Each structure stands twice: as C-alpha cells, then as structure tokens.
C-alpha cells in the first residue's frame, strides 16, 4: 500500500516540477504541488562529519527545507518512516562523459595545417567546445550511476588537449534538462591527448602537448590584450572560461606532475584526474598542491597458476596490483585533497567493490564520504547546494539499510532533486523460514530463503524433494512445483499473499485444473546462519602492502641512498689530468666532492674501501642517450625548439640502473632526429631513486638537438608532405628559422610589445650564445653546410653527434671549433653511413677535434668503456686519450668539465671503481658513485636480486589466494619497455 501511494506521490511531484511557471500548459489545469515530504526516524548523515541519529529530513520542491532531531513539520507534509535506515547525501562524480557520444575518428595520413578557421591554429585546442551542444541525457547510464549512489555528475567532451567546458548534471530521470542541468558551464577541461577527430600531426608527443599548452596560454594573453586583429574563437573561450574549475586529465603520477608544471607557470592550479599511482611519490604529489580526482580502477590479480607464464610478470606490475588499493588511504594520510570518480573503470559495477577494497586497505569511511560528497561539491564551488543535506541543498540523498560503506548494506533509494529512484524495494517483507501445508491429501514442507533479494524455495513431500520455482513481489508469492509423481511432468501452481501475519494464504491450482484454497503455516524463522564465507577472515588488520621503493620497480631503493665519506686505498687512479694514471693511490670522497688524491691518506670519518688491484676513474658521460625519457621525438613540425626533454623525464626506467651498472654517471638525453630543429635536451646525473626533476643538473647547461640528412628529409616515409625533402631544403629551414629568430630577438630587445613565442625564444638563445647545438649528422656536405650557416649568424655549432663522416672534414671542424661525438664502429644501417669507419674518432682526435664516443642506445651505453677501447684497436689511440673519449671529452662538449669528467680535488665525486683495467673487456663496474652517493654496488645488487625473488613469490602467493577465493583474475602480461633511439616516436600520440 505504502508503495503505491509513493508512486502516486512521485507522479505528482514530477508533474509539479515539469510545470515551469512561464511555460504554457495544454495538458490540463496548472496544478503545482506545494506539499512537503518528511523522512523520519532515520540515521541522517547530514555531512561526513555531522550525523543525526533518528532524525527527520524535510524536503520540498527538490530542496532540503530542514533537517534535525525535532524539526517543525508543516501540516501538508507526507511522512515516510525510515526507522532503522540511514540517509546519506548522494555522491558526486566530477569526471564523466555522461550523455556525451564517443568522438569519431577522423581522416587518414599526416596533416600539418589546421582544418578549421576562426579558431586556434591547432585542431587539438578546442576550448570553445561546449559539452551542452552535444549533450543527450542518458537515462540508462543514469540508472547505472544511481545504483552506485551517484546523484550528480560533471560531464565533458573527452577529446582533445583543450577540451572545452563541462557541465554539471543531476541524474534526475523524471525531469528534463531545464531542471537536470545544475550548471551548464562548470569546468574547463584539458589533457595531453590529441583529438581523435583531427589528423593534424602536431603535437606528436607529450612534450609537444606541454609546449602547445604553454604557447596557447601565451597567445591567449596576447589576444586578450587586443594585439590580434583577427578572430580566434578558441582563445576567446579560453580566456572567458578561466574562472571555472580547471580540470586536467592525466593517467599517471608522472603526467600529474607534468600537468601541474604547465599550470604553475600560468598561475593556474589544475584539479587533476590522477592515475592511481600517486602513492609512489606521495611527497611530490602533495607538493603539487593539486586536488586530485581519483580513479579507483584497481587491477585484478594476475592468473599466476602457470609458472612459466607467471615468471614473465614484472615485480612492478605485481606491486601495482598489491599497492593500488592503498592509494586513497595514503593520499588521505598525507593530507592530499581528493574526490573519487568512476572514471577509468572498465565496468562501472566494480566501483563499490573497489571502494570497499580501498576502505579495507585503510581509507577511513569519513574520508571516503568526503571524497564523494563535500570535496567534489567544494571543488565546484557549490557547497551551498551539493554534498550535504543542509537546508537549501538539493534533496539529493540515498536511503540505505545502514552504513553505506559496508559490504552488506543495501541501497534502497536514490533521490535526486527530490525525485525518487528506487533501486530496491525497502518495504519487502522478509518471509524467510520453514512452512508446512497440506494439499490434496499430501503434507508438504516448504523452506523459503533470500526473500529480500533472490527468493528461493525448497519443497519436500514425504521423502521426495520436489522441483520448485518461486517468485515474490508485491507481497504475493507465486510457487510452481512438480507433483510427487516424478514420471509425469505435471505442475501445481500456488498464488499466496504474505501480507498478514506469518502465514501464506491464497489458492492452489492442481494439474487437472481444480482449485483449492492454500494455507501455509510458518513453523520456524530462517536460521540466519552460514554464508558470507569471504567475510569470515576479518578484521581490523588491513591487507599486506608491499613496501614502496624508489623508484617503485625492481632494484628500487627502500631508503634513498645517502652521500658518504669514502676512502679508497691503493687503487690505480685514472685522473684524466696532467698527473695521468697513478698507481697505488688513495682517493678521498667527502661532502659529495673529491677531497684528496694521494698516497697514505687517512680520514677518521671515512668508510675505507680496499681498492688494491682495482681501478678508479671518473664516471662515464654519455653525450647521446635516449634512456630515462617518456618521449623522444616531436615530429609534428619540422622545427620543435619549443619542446624540452626535461618535461618528460622518466624516473623509473630500469635502463638508468643498468647504465649505472656500466659505470655511467651523467648523460645528455637528446631529442630525436625527426626534425632539422629538434627539441631541448635534458642533461642529467643518474641519481637512481630520485624523482624526475632531481636528475637534472643544477645550473644545467642548455642544449638543443638539431638533425640533418635522411631522417629529417623523411627518406623512409611513404608520404612526401613535409618540407624539407632534400638536404637543400634542410639548409633553407635553418636560414629561415635563424632569420626569424634574429628578427624576433631584435624586436624583443627593442622594448616594444611582442608576441611571446617559445620556439623563437629558444632559437634566439642560440644566436646569443646561451644555448648549444648538438647536431645529428652523417655526411660531409651537410656537416660543412651547418657550420657555414652558423658562421653566417655569428655563432658556433657546439657538437656534431654521430658525425660519421667527421673524418672527412675534421680540419674544417677544428677550425670552426666544433666537437665530435661519434659511434665507435656502427655503420651500414642506412645509406648515409656507407662511408662510416671505426677510425673516425681517431682521425678527428688527431686533427684536434674534441672527440667523444656515445651510445644512442640503451644497450651500448652499458659498456661504453669497451666502445672507448675500440679506439685503441681502430686508429691506435693511446689508452689515456681513449678513456677521455667517454669521460672528460664529453664533459667538455657538455660544458661540464669544471664539475665532472676527471678526478681532481674539488670536482664532483662522480667516480667508478672497476674490477680491472677500465678499458678491458674483462672489467666490471663494482661501485658507481655520484656526488658521494653509491648508486650502484655489485654486492648490494646481489642482495636486491634475492629480495626481488622473495617478494615476487610472496605476491604470487597472495594472487593465488585471490584466485582461490573465486575472485576474477586477468591474464599475465609481459612488461615491455620500448627501446628508444633517435627515430622513436611516441605511441598513442
């Protein structure tokens, strides 16, 4: 009865809500319902911190009128008794694509120009995109969200780098958009991902996306100041929407920091849709000051039953599975503000399971509720109407059987804007129990279970167990069962009402059609026993979490290593200075510097290391590396000076550790060779365990990659759509850009207003001698050309890298003053290296060119000492000079020789202890030290191997436990790291 009444009520309410005052009505009389509705005797969670036991919630017109223990209830109030039940504010999801169709993929083949006019020059910048223009309310997904407890969602167009505005939608299935749209412009959304609708090539990398965003903001300021005569609707929208909540979607902690960095430079604090791995460097994430919209798309355990397959699982993937559920707790513990989202979940249904997992892993229920209610409301600036059930708020609330964060709790109803959405009937009478009845001379015993959710009946007559089907709705039980004669397939049907007392009464229809009255007498209540095996374990202790290491992969450190005072005794010391190689010599390292070199040194505080028979050298420096970066090429334009590798450092690349094991301490991560003008470099020390930004040198020298030849003219591309296509064109690219940079710099220096252009700023730095070029080069004609271009603009090329025909123009290089950083013996991999010879380094060196040997390869860089030794074989270079090819000379080329590259008192203690002669193939790096910190140690490495094995077996055991519990698993995957080199393009951009 109550239910039917409620339905009527809902109908009336909705009618009143539809009837907007100024809309004509032709469907009857204007009948506005101005009644109140009161929910009484409920445990009301007004907010995460305010709970009223046995209170009343009074609503009217979709809003909360008042809430409290004893409040005034007007006469025209309909009361609903919620004794024993709880009320919560309903949840808010800040990051959905609710009601927005998936964007359609556009065109094929590379495209360099924009496809729109009147908008920004890049198709992927679409701040003018208004989500409401394509919004279509989706009642089906709304119902899905109701079941999870959500009442309001923010939706946006999930496409492009600048994605336009989002809107806040109440999931009110019984209204139309005039009411459901809480706010049509709430957020301005961004990401690093290009629009799938456009094929415009730029940007083709994450660093390109970052550069593009920065330029967009600069251009917007220039536009806002009235300096542009033409129309740019994109920039107008961007400027117009700057006071909305700025949401940036990323997929990982590293991208989170990248987004924050872009925002900081513009004084914009993005609210960032995180990756779920924030716990890996929680301090860093905290320091971003970003509020996080947090997905909880936790992984399923891997199916590790097959040991062959399981052996390919990486520790880092296993840890992600184990650690991710602790992420919300750790963010809460560290005071990071976050809201929870369903974003990222493959199946939205897993939201509650995963939320429970997070709570089991220690997230407090209060925090969980905040993250779903008050925090998102606050971020939207709508705390007055959303997130709590205080007077004036929307009547958006949940009616539950109890604690909303308890596994067993049932969600009955989800009210949005005062409109009821029934999830599950809360007034179902529990009829579980044992019954007896007689029918046509037979005695029956009936057992009913699960009546509140999935009713099930068991029926016996004498010794026979009978096949039964049962349904139960609206107080009526329908029961169909077989007769005791099991050979005949005949059925008896019963329809009985359960509304009165403990009995079932109605009628039964026999197979022959005769009808009898039916009456079943309850003999026993259900024995609320058994089941919930999974809950049996319990409780208190949160699940085991593998310790986080720095970085959080195999060979990461539990505690970051610290600088020590170290005294190496009786080593053979390769100074790279005028002292040459010193036998039986001691080296003292203190405060991160080389403190003393000499005989019989002592230091009381030092850890003494016997280095007899061993060799000590300066750490190896690789002038040309591509490890430790998330992207290498921005190939969308033929010039990409605006991008920088410093933006995309990857602090959890295992190749960093492997390079340390090869005695490498410093590297230059160069942009790739897709463009004549590439991007800026990152010059870093391999401080394994530090976070990305701490890898970069203090007062880092400024470098940029240029490139010539086959790669930049796209010799192996199937399309010929980008200038230049020949070496002739390459020269003109440089002439053009440097001419423009000169003009730009002149304008800037003149003090007049100018449009800030990062690309031009960087090129001007080159002209002004503040930034150095390392140029990918192969054949003598182009090498010569670039030196001549530079001379025309009065600067010098700093380094030719690869420079495989350097030996043909070594004299000209020496005259120009450019260095050469080459491969020891690579050749024949493409046409332009036909004349590459392993004697190249020797000839350049002999001609007076500062010569280095580099890797451009994560494998070769592990044994650059061997590559240097090849110069002894090919060209007869003496051993001390050969050793400088991978230490002091690259330090010179990188303008770092005052700090590293040789063993000299006062220089950085970047040193390697070798087991043997450093140029010998039989030698291994035993310790690799940077600024007094031992980052690689053979002994420690051995211990870590054992620890990895142990931790993996423990995690495998936990995964097997999950599988045995019947939880779903996912197939094993093999972690891959794409080996990056000059030609590498980002995938997925």
């Amino acid at each position: 009865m109550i239910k039917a009444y409620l339905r009527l009520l809902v109908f009336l309410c909705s009618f009143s809500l539809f009837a907007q005052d100024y809309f004509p009505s032709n469907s009857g009389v204007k009948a506005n319902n101005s009644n109140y509705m009161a929910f009484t005797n409920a445990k009301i969670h007004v907010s995460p911190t305010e709970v009223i036991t046995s209170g009343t919630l009074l609503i009217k017109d979709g809003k909360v009128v008042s809430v409290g223990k004893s409040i005034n209830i007007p006469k025209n109030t309909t009361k609903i008794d919620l004794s024993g039940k709880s009320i919560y504010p309903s949840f808010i999801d800040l990051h959905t694509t609710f009601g927005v169709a998936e964007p359609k993929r556009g065109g094929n083949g590379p495209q360099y120009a924009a496809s729109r006019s009147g908008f920004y020059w890049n198709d992927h910048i679409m701040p003018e995109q208004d989500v409401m223009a394509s919004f279509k309310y989706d009642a089906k997904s709304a119902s899905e969200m109701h079941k999870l407890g959500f009442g309001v969602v923010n939706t946006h167009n999930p496409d492009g780098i600048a994605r336009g505005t989002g809107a806040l939608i109440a999931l009110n299935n019984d209204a139309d958009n005039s009411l459901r749209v809480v706010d049509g412009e709430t957020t301005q959304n961004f990401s690093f991902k290009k629009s799938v609708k456009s094929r415009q090539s730029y940007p083709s990398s994450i660093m390109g996306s970052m550069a593009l965003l920065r330029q967009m903001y600069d251009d917007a300021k220039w536009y806002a100041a009235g300096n542009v005569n033409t129309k740019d609707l994109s920039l107008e929208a961007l400027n117009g929407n700057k006071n909305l909540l700025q949401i940036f979607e990323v997929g990982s902690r590293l991208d989170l920091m990248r987004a924050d960095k872009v925002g900081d430079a513009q004084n914009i604090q993005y609210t960032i849709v995180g990756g779920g791995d924030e716990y890996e460097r929680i301090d860093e994430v905290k320091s971003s000051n970003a509020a996080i919209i947090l997905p909880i798309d936790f992984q399923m355990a891997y199916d590790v039953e097959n040991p062959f397959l399981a052996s390919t699982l990486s520790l880092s993937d296993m840890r992600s599975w184990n650690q991710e559920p602790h992420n919300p707790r750790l963010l809460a513990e560290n005071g990071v503000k976050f809201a929870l989202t369903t974003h990222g979940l493959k199946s939205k249904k897993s939201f509650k399971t995963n939320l429970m997992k997070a709570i089991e892993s220690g997230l407090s229920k209060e925090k969980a509720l905040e993250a779903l209610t008050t925090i998102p409301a606050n971020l939207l600036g709508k705390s007055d109407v959303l997130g709590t059930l205080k007077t004036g708020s929307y009547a958006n609330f949940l009616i539950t059987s109890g604690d909303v964060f308890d596994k067993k709790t049932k969600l009955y109803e989800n009210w949005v804007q005062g409109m009821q959405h029934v999830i599950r009937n809360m007034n179902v009478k529990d009829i579980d129990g044992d019954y007896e009845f007689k029918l046509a001379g037979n005695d029956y015993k009936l057992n009913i279970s699960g009546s509140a959710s999935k009713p099930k009946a068991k029926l016996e007559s004498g010794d026979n167990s009978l096949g039964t089907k049962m349904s139960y709705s609206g107080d009526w039980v329908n029961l169909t069962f077989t007769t005791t004669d099991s050979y005949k397939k005949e059925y008896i049907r019963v329809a009985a009402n359960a509304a009165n007392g403990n009995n079932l009464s109605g009628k039964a229809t026999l197979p022959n059609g005769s009808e009898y009255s039916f009456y079943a007498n309850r003999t026993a209540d259900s024995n609320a026993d058994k089941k919930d095996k999974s809950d049996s374990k319990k409780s208190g202790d949160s699940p085991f979490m593998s310790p986080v290491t720095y970085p959080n992969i195999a060979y990461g450190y539990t505690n970051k290593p610290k600088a020590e005072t170290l005294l190496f005794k009786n080593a053979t010391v390769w100074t790279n200075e005028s002292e040459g190689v010193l036998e039986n010599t001691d080296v003292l390292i203190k405060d991160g510097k080389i403190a003393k070199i000499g005989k019989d040194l002592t230091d009381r505080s030092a850890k003494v290391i016997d280095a007899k028979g061993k060799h000590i050298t300066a750490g190896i420096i690789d002038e040309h590396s591509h490890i430790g970066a998330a992207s290498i090429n921005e190939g969308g334009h033929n010039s990409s000076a605006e991008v920088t590798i410093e933006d995309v450092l990857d602090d959890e690349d295992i190749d960093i550790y492997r390079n340390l094991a090869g005695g490498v301490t410093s590297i230059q991560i160069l942009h790739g060779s897709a463009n004549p003008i590439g991007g800026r470099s990152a010059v870093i020390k391999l401080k394994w365990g530090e976070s990305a930004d701490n890898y970069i040198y203090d007062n880092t020298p400024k470098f940029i990659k240029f490139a010539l030849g086959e790669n930049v003219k796209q010799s192996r591309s199937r399309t010929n759509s980008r200038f230049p296509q020949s070496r002739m064109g390459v020269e003109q690219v440089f002439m053009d850009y440097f001419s423009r940079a000169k003009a730009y710099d002149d304008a800037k220096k003149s003090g007049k207003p100018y449009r800030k252009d990062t690309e031009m700023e960087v090129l001007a730095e080159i002209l002004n001698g503040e930034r150095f070029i390392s140029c990918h080069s192969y054949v003598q004609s182009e090498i010569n050309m670039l030196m001549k271009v530079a001379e025309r603009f009065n600067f010098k090329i700093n380094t030719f890298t690869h420079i495989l025909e350097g030996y043909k123009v070594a004299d000209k290089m020496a005259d120009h003053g450019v260095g050469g950083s080459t491969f020891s013996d690579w050749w024949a991999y493409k046409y332009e290296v036909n004349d590459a010879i392993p004697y190249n380094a020797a000839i350049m060196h002999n001609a007076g060119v500062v010569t280095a040997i580099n890797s451009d390869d994560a494998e070769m860089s592990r044994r650059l000492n061997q590559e240097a030794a090849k110069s002894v074989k090919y060209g007869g270079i003496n051993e001390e000079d050969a050793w400088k090819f991978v230490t002091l000379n690259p330090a010179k080329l990188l303008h770092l020789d005052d700090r590293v590259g040789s063993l000299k008192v006062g220089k950085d203690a970047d040193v390697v202890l070798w087991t043997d002669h450093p140029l010998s193939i039989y030698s291994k790096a035993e310790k690799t030290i940077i600024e007094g910190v031992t980052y690689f140690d053979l002994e420690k490495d051995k211990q870590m191997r054992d620890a990895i094995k142990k931790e993996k077996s423990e995690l495998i055991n936990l995964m097997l436990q999950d599988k045995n519990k019947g939880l779903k698993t996912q197939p094993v995957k093999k972690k891959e790291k794409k080996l990056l080199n000059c030609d590498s393009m980002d995938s997925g951009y």
Partner: protein
Amino acid sequence: MKNYIYIIAFLLVSSIGYAQQTPASKQSKDIAIVGATAHIGNGEVIENSLITFSNGKITNIGDATVMKLSTVNMEVIDASGKHVYPGFIVSNGTLGLVEVDAVKASSDLSEMGTFNPHIRSLIAYNAESKIVESMRPNGVLLGQVVPRGGRITGTSSIVQYDAWNWEDAVIKVDDGIHINWPNSFSRGRWWLGEDAALKPNKDYNKQVKELEMYFNESKSYNAGPKDERHLPFESMAGLFNGSKHLYVNVNDQKGITDAVNFTKSQGVSNITIVGGYEAGEIADFLKQNNVSVFLRRVHTRPNNEDDDYDLPYKLAKKLVDAGVLVSLEPSGQMERMNSRNLPFYAGTAVAHGLTKEQALQLITQNPAKIMGIDNMYGTLEHGKSATLFISKGDALDMRTNIVTHAFIDGRQLSLETHQTKLWKRYSEKYNQQD
C-alpha cells in the same frame, strides 16, 4: 621504384670506385708461424708454439721448444709475443644477405610465406659485400648464412669470408633448416582496439600442431612416389635422413622443452636451440638430450625489467658449466656490421664467469662441431684447414685484438677493407696539410 633504381645505380658506381679486396690465391709456399701463444680452440694453449701449414692444411703444431723441425723453404712468420687463433665462426649469421639495412633494394634477408624450407640462402650470398670484408681484420673468417622470417625460414649454408662468389665461398652446402618456434606470448591487434600488451599466445598449441602436420606431410611425401614434385617437402628430407641439421629459434623454457620433445618425436637427431634466453633454466634437460645452443647475442639488454642486469652476459657460463655445447650467435639489430664484434661477445662472457679458453671455444670449436665442419675447421690441429690468424694480443679484448695476418685454407688474406682505405686516404689528406 625510381628511387631504388637510383640507389642501385649509385651502389654500382660506388663499388667501382672502391673495388673489393681481391681474394687471396691458393697457398703456394709452406708457411711457419713461430713463437706465438697458440690458442687451439679446444681449451688448450701452447705457449711458445710452432705451426706449419702446407697446401692449406696444418702440417705441424706443437711446442717450439720441444719440436725439432726445419723451416727451410718455408715462409717463416716470427710471431713471438703474439697470439694465434683458429678463424672465428659466426653461427646463425646473415652476412652477405643485406648491404644497407635501410635500403630495401639491398636486402635479400627473408622470403614471403610461412613454410619455406626450400628457400636457400647460399645463392643470395654476396661474397663481395663490404660488410663481409670488414670481418677479417677482427679474425672473423667464416660463418653460417641464414635466411630469416616465417615459421620455417629456409635452408642455410656455411661460407668462408674471402671469395669471388658464393660457389667459391661455400664450405658446406645446405647444412640445415631453421625454424621459428611459436611464441608463448602474442600481442593484441591494437588496430582493432585490442590491448597491445604481450599476453599469453592463445594459438600456441594450434601453431605447434600446424608445424607437426607439416613435418608429417613432409615425411609422407618423401616416403611416397613423388608423382607430383613438391619442392618444400622435398627439401625437408635431409632432416629425417640426418643429412641436415635443425635449428630452432626459441627463447622461453617451456618453448624450448616443447621444441626438443617435438623434434625427438619427429625423429630429427641433429638439433640446436637458437636464442635460448631461458635455456640455462633447463640446462640439464638439454644436456641429457644432447641438444646444443646457439646462444643469443651477448651484448643485449635483459628481456625483463626484473632480470639481473648482467643476465645476457652470463648465460653462457651457466650452460657451459652444465656441459651443454654452446656457441654465440649475433642476431638482432645491426647484426651484420656487428658480427665483427663476435670475439668481444666471447670476451664479455669471460668477464662474467668463463675462462678465456672456454669462451674461445664458443666461437671456434663449438660452432664447428654443431654445424658439422669440425673435421676441417674450428681448432688448430694437424690435418685440419689452416684457417687462422695472428693477433698482436688477446683477440677477445678490443684493446689487443690487432690482427696482423689471417689465413683461410692457407691463403693469406688481405686485411684491407673499404674502411681501412678511407682511413688511409683521409689520414693522408691531413698529413699533406701538415
């Protein structure tokens, strides 16, 4: 197409410009190498050795202080303080099949199709490749020429690296057939929206079955009347009569086990695992089944993030210790130009556990044994081919691998290459300027 024609034309012109070294003529005079440390290739060393060879064959080898031997009428090479080695042998190489990686017109590396046992590498071997000649100054003198691609990739041959043409070059014609064993992992078809990550290969069993069917069909064909000629089946015959060796490219331990069991059940007796990244895990099984391994390139990164950083360096040690016959193979990126680093692959294995002489065996005696050319090549022994070289120092270390003389079948080779000529040409240019 036009581009390719230009490139070919250019290559022709440039090869006229820098003519290849003329292959050495037959040994006409007996030669004696005196005083060198002789590394026999079988694990033994003779400190102060005397080696003589005549008509391309080694006539004497022994301790110079003990041997009484006249070297009158011989060309005597004083090699005291130097080292003599058997010519190094490249297993599973592709030298001579591609000249410039990025120029498709210069590649004859692989044929279309899945089952190609009839495809023969030998006839595409370019004896005048500039890359081949660059092997000799490092002591790398002979090797296998193997096609790539497909499930059954084709038939290899073994050549020496100083010849006018492939007929001249060949040491052993059609020595073996090469298979790529099905992968345990496969990638989703990302272009159809599937996950591109490497996941367990669902078709593994099916692919093994296909291979099994192919072997069975080949046997049936060869047992029958052969009314209609079937070239691929015909070329499989050698596997079953023992005249051809089977090389199976496979890296994971389950795949290796499956491959060994498969070939045994097929009655193939001569089998070698190529790659064998996880072979060390089942070394005893390989030893028991008498299966040898061409071990994947030493100078590579570990396959998995969690692997020991030096795993590729120390794989050889594990297998050798278990008594498995191991040779080192160079396949991978830039494998042809890097094949000259074969001695340094062996040297790295020394840094990670093997003795120098053990490591030497991996590139001399062992590959010769596995490929069935050990009656003539691979060791310095009386009656065997005088295919050897003299190095100023330890040839496994790049600092000291400085080859002064090299011989194939007693013929003294030129150590000049396209590269040494350019070196001299430009050194000369700068000397003129001084």
